[in-house]
């Protein structure tokens, strides 16, 4: 229970930060939603990075690498370390400049102005909001998992998730963007420290990493975890598309508007890959070497469940496979290692660091509230009729509603943190990235092109979700071929999701979304010359 007490102290600190930010705020929309566009370079770097690092970063990545090996780092970390800073450099700076110039608070306000549209903007806003919900859910799930593990079950999953949801809701409710940015900055510092300390403590505890890795290399069961042979090169390539989602996330675009000066982006894009390295490398590596630990029953039972799934999976009923999958799920693997190898007080401090990453769903909750109040409430005359203060109060009420809904879903969600985040939120936003690129860089893009891309994205995400419900996941190993033609396996159900011609669905989703933007824009009327003049020199 002692580690959990450190986490409670941490929760109290972030709550205080939110309330402190509240005392410095005004009932103005730009102040509540954008911290009055006044963030300095250090807070901007730390908070922008922190908002991109979630429960998924520490818990999901360690769990994924425990099951799949070192490939996790190349899949998500090093690809993000280049693609995300590039998109911030090319798109984030332009979004900031347009926001400053025209007073935008949300991406859809820019799309509406850029493409001279009204209701199409509402459709885009609703779709953006819908894709954001899974991201918020993983925060609640991560909170429940962390507290339950650190307290050895004394705080049940449902109570841990509820506590995290209430604390996040409270500081977002009171502090708005200012409170969220300050908390995110603190969280980034904490989980940067966490990674290094956890690596040293656990490395010492297991008797040295070289010994652990050599032991794995000598074992037929674990040697493949030190290579990338469990993932095909086409799947590996597919993951380069996932980080495109980052700049399309509304909370990241909104964060780009909070910088006081554009030069604050400079340190952010340079240090971003190094921050990714500092956090992801320890998490992925610890997840992998956990397989070498043979004196912790919780780890052994996960390895046994994984082996049973691979050995007997094809002869088992789908429900039995699902049970084994749950037993093998390893989102709590770093927490288990900490409990085994770190002294209680240190496990508590490090647990607080993990909790910091878990609670990064705050800016997503605030973004949802911003989308609702700016893109819908204010656009459909709510602000004009009831005033700006009512708009801010509506935003706060929305924060409460969103959190309650996310918590209710988190209690029912069956998939691991990693799968849930990648399959729905990341893929959906990656497929929406052509909207931003077209709005910023292509004069010929139109609102109808944007609508076509958006509707395609929604349909394809829904189709993948339905497909995965209808065709049960096979056990780890060869995928189930659902449709092949001309010697090509076009559609396959894999253990972790879906493959289309060997690629992850995100690849065709994004490419077709871009193609639709181009073709439909060519066929439809362009915005007026006056509008184009305001966006292009």
């Amino acid at each position, binding site marked *: 229970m002692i580690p959990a007490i450190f986490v409670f102290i941490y929760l109290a600190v972030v709550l205080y930060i939110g309330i402190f930010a509240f005392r410095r705020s005004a009932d103005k929309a730009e102040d509540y939603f954008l911290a009055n566009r006044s963030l300095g370079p250090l807070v901007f770097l730390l908070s922008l990075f922190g908002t991109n690092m979630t429960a998924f970063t520490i818990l999901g990545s360690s769990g994924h690498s425990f099951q799949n090996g070192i490939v996790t780092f190349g899949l998500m970390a090093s690809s993000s370390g*280049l693609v995300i800073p590039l998109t911030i450099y090319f798109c984030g*700076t332009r979004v*900031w*400049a347009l926001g400053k110039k025209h*007073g935008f608070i949300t991406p859809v306000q820019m799309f509406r102005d850029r493409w001279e549209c009204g209701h199409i903007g509402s459709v885009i806003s609703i779709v953006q909001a819908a894709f954001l919900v899974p991201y918020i859910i993983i925060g609640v799930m991560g909170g429940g998992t962390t507290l339950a593990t650190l307290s050895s079950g004394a705080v049940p999953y449902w109570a841990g998730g509820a506590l995290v949801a209430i604390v996040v809701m409270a500081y977002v409710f009171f502090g708005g963007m200012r409170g969220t940015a300050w908390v995110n900055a603190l969280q980034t510092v904490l989980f940067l420290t966490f990674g290094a300390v956890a690596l040293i403590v656990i490395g010492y505890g297991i008797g040295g990493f*070289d010994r652990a890795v050599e032991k794995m290399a000598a074992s037929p069961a674990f040697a493949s975890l030190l*290579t990338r042979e469990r993932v095909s090169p086409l799947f590996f390539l597919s993951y380069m598309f996932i980080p495109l989602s980052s700049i399309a996330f509304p909370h990241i675009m909104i964060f780009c508007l909070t910088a006081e000066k554009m030069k604050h982006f400079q340190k952010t894009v340079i240090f971003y890959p190094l921050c990714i390295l500092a956090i992801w490398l320890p998490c992925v590596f610890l997840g992998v070497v956990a397989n070498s630990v043979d004196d912790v029953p919780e780890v052994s039972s996960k390895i046994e469940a994984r082996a049973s799934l691979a050995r007997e999976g094809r002869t088992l009923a789908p429900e039995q496979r699902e049970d084994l999958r749950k037993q093998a799920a390893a989102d709590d693997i770093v927490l288990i290692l900490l409990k085994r190898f770190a002294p209680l007080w240190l496990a508590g401090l490090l647990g607080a660091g993990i909790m910091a990453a878990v609670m990064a769903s705050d800016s997503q909750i605030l973004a949802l509230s911003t989308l609702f109040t700016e893109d819908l409430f204010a656009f459909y005359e709510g602000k004009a009729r009831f005033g700006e203060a009512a708009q801010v109060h509506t935003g706060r009420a929305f924060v409460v509603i969103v959190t309650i809904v996310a918590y209710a879903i988190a209690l029912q969600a069956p998939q691991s943190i990693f799968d849930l985040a990648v399959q729905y939120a990341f893929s959906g936003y990656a497929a929406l990235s052509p909207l931003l690129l077209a709005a910023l860089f292509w004069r010929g893009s139109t609102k109808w092109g944007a609508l076509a891309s958006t509707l395609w994205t929604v349909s394809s995400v829904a189709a993948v979700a339905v497909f995965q419900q209808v065709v049960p996941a096979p056990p780890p190993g060869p995928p189930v071929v659902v449709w092949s033609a001309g010697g090509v396996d076009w559609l396959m159900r894999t253990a972790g999701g879906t493959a289309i011609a060997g690629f992850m669905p995100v690849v065709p989703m994004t490419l077709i979304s871009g193609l639709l933007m181009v073709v439909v824009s060519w066929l439809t009327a362009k915005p007026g010359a006056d509008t184009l003049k305001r966006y292009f020199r």
Partner: protein
Amino acid sequence: MKTFGLVLITLVLLALHQDVWFFRTARPMAFGFLPPGLWYHALYAVLSAVLMWVLVRLAWPAHLEAEAESHEEPKQ
């Protein structure tokens, strides 16, 4: 010429992410415990930071800030 060079370097770095030559090997290990799938991609992250530094130094879109400051419109 400068733009062409920067675009080329960026594309090369993007392509280098697909290190298929290291896919099925666990050796050589760095520091005795980091397989190529980790040390290569750790190095890749460092190179990404260097590329971003080069882009900031040589091709920072400073005109955007100047335009935004000079044409700021009344808030919505």
